[in-house]
Each structure stands twice: as structure tokens, then as C-alpha cells.
């Protein structure tokens, strides 16, 4: 999975540059989809809420406008982690300061893996 981080870089661009990056980004996603390498992808709205704690408190997302904020994602279908990194390196937002986080999708929930690990340990 590719997570696109940073959503404050847009401000510094002219409308022409923005149009250019948008077109490049869309063409990139379309090509990956045609090649069967992208399964899903979505931009996310800037609006953000955080739900946390035992009391399930709702607060405004602290990450709304920052270099760390996630602006969108692509779900890829590739054979290796390295393939995903190569695709990430094609991101049209990179020259403008976007960072792409590349993360393997887990085969199973990490909580379930931890349980399995504990069980093995207990049985050993």
C-alpha cells in the first residue's frame, strides 16, 4: 500500500502546475490500473477527526495541514516490496515535497499473529 504524505505542498503551486500534477497523477493511476498493479486508490478530504481512549473522545485531527498528513492512498497488487518502492518512486508529487510511505499489507491481523506467537511460546 502506498500512503501519500503531505498536503501543504499544493499551496505554493500555480494553477497551471496544479493542473499538470493532477493530470500526471491521474494518468499514473490509470496506467497502474490498466497494468493490473493498482487495485484501489482514493484521495482523502482534508477534514479529519480522531477518536481515542477508553472514553472514545472525538477531537479534530491534529494532522490536517502538515507534512505528515495522509492525502490519499493506492492499494497495489505487486509481487514484491521492491516493486512497490519502484512504483512509489514514480509519484508525480515527489518533486513538490510529497513523501510516499510504502507498507506491506499484512497477511493476517498483527493481533492474531501475536496470539499465535504467545501460544507457540506457551506450548514450547
Amino acid at each position, binding site marked *: 500500500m502506498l500512503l501519500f504524505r503531505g498536503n501543504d505542498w499544493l499551496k505554493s503551486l500555480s494553477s497551471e502546475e496544479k493542473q499538470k500534477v493532477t493530470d500526471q497523477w491521474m494518468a499514473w493511476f490509470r496506467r497502474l490500473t490498466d497494468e493490473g498493479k493498482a487495485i484501489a486508490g482514493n484521495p482523502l*478530504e482534508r477534514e479529519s477527526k480522531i477518536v481515542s481512549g477508553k472514553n472514545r473522545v472525538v477531537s479534530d485531527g491534529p494532522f490536517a495541514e502538515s507534512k505528515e498528513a495522509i492525502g490519499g492512498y493506492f492499494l497495489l497488487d505487486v509481487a514484491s516490496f521492491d516493486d512497490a518502492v519502484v512504483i512509489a518512486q514514480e509519484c508525480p508529487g515527489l518533486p513538490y515535497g510529497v513523501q510516499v510511505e510504502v507498507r506491506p499489507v*499484512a497477511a493476517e491481523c498483527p493481533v492474531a499473529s501475536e496470539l499465535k506467537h504467545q501460544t507457540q511460546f506457551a506450548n514450547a
Partner: protein
Amino acid sequence: MLLYRTDEWYNKLSQEELQKLINQNKAWFEGLTAQGKAKPGRALERKGAIVSGVNGHIVTDGPFAESKEAIGGYLVLDVETIEEAIAIAQSSPGLAYGGSIEVRPVAEECPLDVRARELAREEHCVTI
């Protein structure tokens, strides 16, 4: 979209607690799916890379698993309002143990397009 922001809090749980939580999570997710409110969600491995730099030539390890803000997984919802998505996030069984859930509307339209249109309009106004 729900983004789970967590560290590896589940390492602190006992086997019983883990099993209980897994069962609760499963029931929670199945309930949402049965109501047509959840599309497939996935957990992400606790390792990865960050690609940055003009040509994407900088590849570093990340994010750090111990960070409370690292994304541990995601769930795409099919609901009408952000309030409903927040209510679903609040009902997530894992919250009792730590971590937080970021709730984000999926954009109808790419924010790049929206901003380009706004700028074009501003320039049009200036011309007039």
C-alpha cells in the same frame, strides 16, 4: 475511511485478553459488513519504507513501529455522513487498549483538481 493509528500496544496483552479482543473485533467487523457499512479493510505490516526527494531517490526505513501515530491498518466505510463514521470508530473494540482512529472522508474529487479550479477562478477575477 478509518485509519488506525497505533503502536504495538497488543504486545502487552495476555493470551486471554488477545483472544477476547480478536473475537470482539471479528464480531464488530462482521456486524458492519452485514449492514453493508464496511468494505474490506486490512492491517499493515509494522515495517515499510518512505520514498521522498525530487526523483524519489531517497528511500528510508519507516515508519517507526513504536510511534503512536504510525498507521497500523485501515477500513473503508460506506456511510452517508462523517458522524456515522465517527460513531462506528467509537464502537471499535481495540480503542479500550490504546491507540486512536483517524476518521477521514474519501474525497469525491481529487483535492488537486479542486484547488486548480479555485486558482483558475481567482485568476479570472483578477483579469476582470
